[in-house]
């Protein structure tokens, strides 16, 4: 009996709580606070923050596979069996903790699917089970499905009208993607300097933060660098929420008051047929030129076609509501599962947070500079403030353009004009994602 009470204590969270886990619980609470008090992308950060706390509950192993739990908790005999299955030699001299560590690292690393399945079978046979968050992650993210379904919903919520009325704003969406590639280079540079240790794949996944598109970031990093997914998703959504703080100083620094006062010509009305044909035209271009962007842009176009075609309203409604909400809940919790202390609390995370901020800043700047360039070479006036909306972060960045514009000229409403580059930025980062997946995936 005493022994049992002791088990209760030695199995409790308080007894087992590592410093890292305590810190991560606080990080989770911080994310929740940002989401609730500061309205930082709450739809994602509430589930991510909560999932982060759940993932760091000591001994619960919610974010671990059966095999990982066994590596953490099983008796030596089972550890030896698992090592044999995984074709590992365990040093008999090393202590059992070293064995656990070796197994954990191997399971977390790049083990072949067949061996992984065998190890999981063995662990399940011994009574271990996949953790809840691990299952969510497998189904939602490892399969790549959840970000794609969310992208479909985003497509169903996107109105391409402003873009179609002024297609040249696509150039702004293109220019803002420079943030992605500059960040990639920054990450690579940090590694070359020896400050961090990012591979090219990891650098690319980090760069995509600059795309300011949550689902795109998650999709790319689930393919190129799943081990960084937690930090990347957190950075991505946090900075999207910080757009109203990050962008205005850059926008003001790069534009003169006169430029900020430019009044744009009113957008022409766009016909229903154009809106229907556009997603199909975009799809065909993807088919012809960048098959690797097909999952992302294909689902995006599909969602938009459902929205515009007018004959499947019930599907479009569901894609915009029940379906995207359901997937968002599980996507968020799954991302949270990547906030485990031993993975997240690394110096690389700090690098990612720093680089993500840089990515946003550079993307913003390039969008604005591109707008100024277009103003220089074309007659049709473009207020450079809408260039910053090219980073996407829909619709926040467009609202920021509008707000900064109103500060200079209280009668100049830029919102609809800024929606063009805003959605162009979504397309732009999906294209950039396709290129990266092509070369590195």
């Amino acid at each position: 009996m005493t022994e049992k009470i002791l088990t209760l204590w030695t199995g409790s969270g308080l007894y087992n709580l590592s410093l890292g886990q305590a810190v991560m619980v606080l990080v989770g609470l911080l994310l929740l606070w940002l989401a609730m008090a500061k309205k930082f992308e709450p739809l994602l950060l509430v589930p991510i923050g909560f999932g982060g706390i759940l993932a760091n509950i000591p001994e619960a192993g919610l974010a671990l596979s059966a095999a990982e739990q066994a590596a953490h908790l099983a008796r030596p005999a089972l550890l030896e069996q698992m090592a044999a299955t995984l074709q590992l030699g365990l040093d008999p001299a090393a202590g059992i903790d070293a064995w656990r560590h070796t197994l954990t690292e191997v399971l977390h690393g790049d083990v072949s699917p067949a061996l992984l399945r065998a190890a999981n079978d063995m662990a399940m046979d011994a009574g271990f089970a996949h953790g809840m968050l691990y299952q969510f992650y497998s189904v939602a993210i490892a399969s790549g499905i959840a970000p794609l379904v969310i992208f479909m919903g985003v497509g169903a919520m996107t109105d391409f009208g402003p873009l179609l009325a002024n297609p040249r704003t696509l150039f702004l969406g293109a220019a803002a993607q420079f943030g992605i590639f500059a960040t990639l280079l920054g990450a690579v540079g940090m590694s070359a300097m020896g400050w961090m240790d990012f591979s090219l794949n990891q650098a690319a996944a980090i760069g995509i933060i600059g795309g300011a598109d949550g689902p795109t970031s998650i999709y790319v990093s689930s393919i190129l660098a799943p081990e960084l997914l937690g930090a990347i998703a957190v950075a991505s959504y946090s900075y999207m929420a910080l757009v109203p703080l990050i962008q205005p100083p850059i926008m003001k620094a790069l534009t003169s008051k006169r430029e900020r006062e430019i009044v744009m010509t009113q957008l022409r009305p766009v016909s229903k047929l154009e809106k229907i044909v556009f997603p199909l035209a975009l799809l065909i271009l993807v088919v012809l030129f960048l098959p690797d962007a097909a999952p992302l842009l294909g689902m995006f176009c599909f969602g938009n076609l459902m929205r515009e075609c007018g004959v499947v309203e019930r599907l479009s409604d569901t894609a915009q509501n029940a379906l995207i909400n359901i997937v968002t809940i599980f996507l968020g919790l799954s991302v949270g599962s990547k906030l485990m202390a031993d993975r997240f609390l690394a110096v690389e995370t700090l690098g990612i947070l720093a680089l993500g901020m840089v990515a946003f800043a550079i993307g913003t700047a390039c969008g604005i500079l591109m707008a100024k360039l277009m103003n220089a070479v074309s007659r049709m006036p473009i207020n450079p403030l809408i260039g910053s909306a090219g980073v996407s972060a829909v619709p926040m960045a467009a609202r920021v353009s509008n707000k900064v514009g109103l500060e200079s000229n209280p009668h100049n409403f830029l919102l609809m004009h800024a929606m063009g580059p805003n959605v162009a930025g979504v397309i732009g980062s999906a294209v950039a994602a396709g290129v990266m997946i092509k070369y590195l995936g």
Partner: protein
Amino acid sequence: MQDTQLLNEGLALMGLGMGFVFVFLTVLVIVTTLMSKAIGRFFPEPVAPEAPARGGARAQASQGDDVMVAISTAVHRYRRRHRR
């Protein structure tokens, strides 16, 4: 040396990626413009009213003659909800 190679690869990927993004979106600008012109010319539809942001609110305005229908529907739905 390996660092240099990593940097080089990063640079190459940047050039390639940025270039491709621009090429692709330029093609998209051209295609979109042509498409809009073609549609404006061959299918000069009556212009669609600006779709509001929320899908749910797309219902076109309706004449007020069936306000009573609406009210009684609202009553029914209200009662059904609260009975549950």
